[in-house]
């Protein structure tokens, strides 16, 4: 039983996963650096995020070598969060739509960037209205 004597594995696997995490983080950063936008940005960022999280949990935290009783205790309860995320997304879109429809909020408001603001001295005027 591996876990009774502790998790002993060859060092090679740690080095490989370490390098892989660096590469995946580099890819995540590249998504922003090359300014990928829209659905592709979401897909890539979330893909790299789950790959990184998966390798950390599986290899660095040794979950892949644990017994099923412990694995399910760790990974089982958090899966209900997917339900919460799903419900909040649906409810959130409804709330936002209601605010646009009944509270007169501006659908076309655009965010400001630091470069927009640093030109005009002393005017940190809050949300802009178009």
């Amino acid at each position: 039983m591996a876990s009774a004597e502790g998790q002993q594995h060859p060092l090679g696997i740690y080095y490989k996963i370490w390098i892989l995490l660096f590469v995946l983080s580099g890819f995540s950063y590249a998504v922003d650096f090359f300014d990928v936008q829209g659905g592709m940005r979401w897909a890539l960022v979330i893909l790299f995020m789950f790959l990184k999280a998966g390798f950390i949990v599986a290899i660095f935290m040794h979950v892949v070598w644990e017994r099923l009783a412990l694995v399910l205790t760790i990974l089982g309860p958090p899966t209900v969060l997917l339900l919460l995320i799903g419900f909040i997304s649906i409810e959130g879109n409804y709330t936002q739509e209601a605010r646009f429809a009944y509270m007169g909020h501006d659908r076309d408001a655009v965010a400001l960037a630091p470069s927009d603001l640093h030109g005009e001295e002393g005017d940190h005027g809050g949300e802009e209205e178009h």
Partner: protein
Amino acid sequence: MSEATVNEVGPHEGVTGLVDDWGADKQAYHVPWGKAMMWIFLVSDTFIFSCFLVGYLNVRITTTQPWPPQSEIFALSFGGDPIPLILIAIMTFILITSSGTMALAVNMGYRKDKVKAFWLICATAAFGASFVGMQAFEWSKLILEEGVRPWGNPFGAPQFGSVFFMVTGFHGLHVSAGVIYLLWVAFRVKRGHYDKKGYEIIEIAGLYWHFVDLVWVFIFAFFYLL
């Protein structure tokens, strides 16, 4: 299968093992109790962070004001044009590096190589401390130069400041606590405190540290990239 056979080959694996472990009125987790307790703590901590992240999801979806452009807000210039998210990228790489040194420390602990384990844990703690230092720098730039406050900011939706400071602050608190915890473990390892008890403690401290890195993976994606 008679009981004698089970005793000779050890407990079953897979689903049969699951049923045995839970159904036989005996110890369910075949790991040191400290490790089981650390996992229970980490699962509960997962729920705390998830509550914050789901709260963030909710305000991000419901707000009718545009979300501030993180890529530009977190850009940093080294004399030339600002490079988007560069500080955050460095912080991410530092935390991954610290996870790697921690994984090696766990391995060295089980090899009973006290000196290497001690220095690797110290390196992990040092990377963690530098991460917190960079976060302090990032926060002061955000507060003093960009004028971001928990109740508002010059760029767009005021919720940006509140969720950002809340979640990255709570994560930074975890990193700081982890640094103290790791140093405590490191010095006990060095003094030979675990020579008889065994070195599971390094793996247990390592689980906490990898968890902190894991949370950062999600924060990096949701607060800075998306």
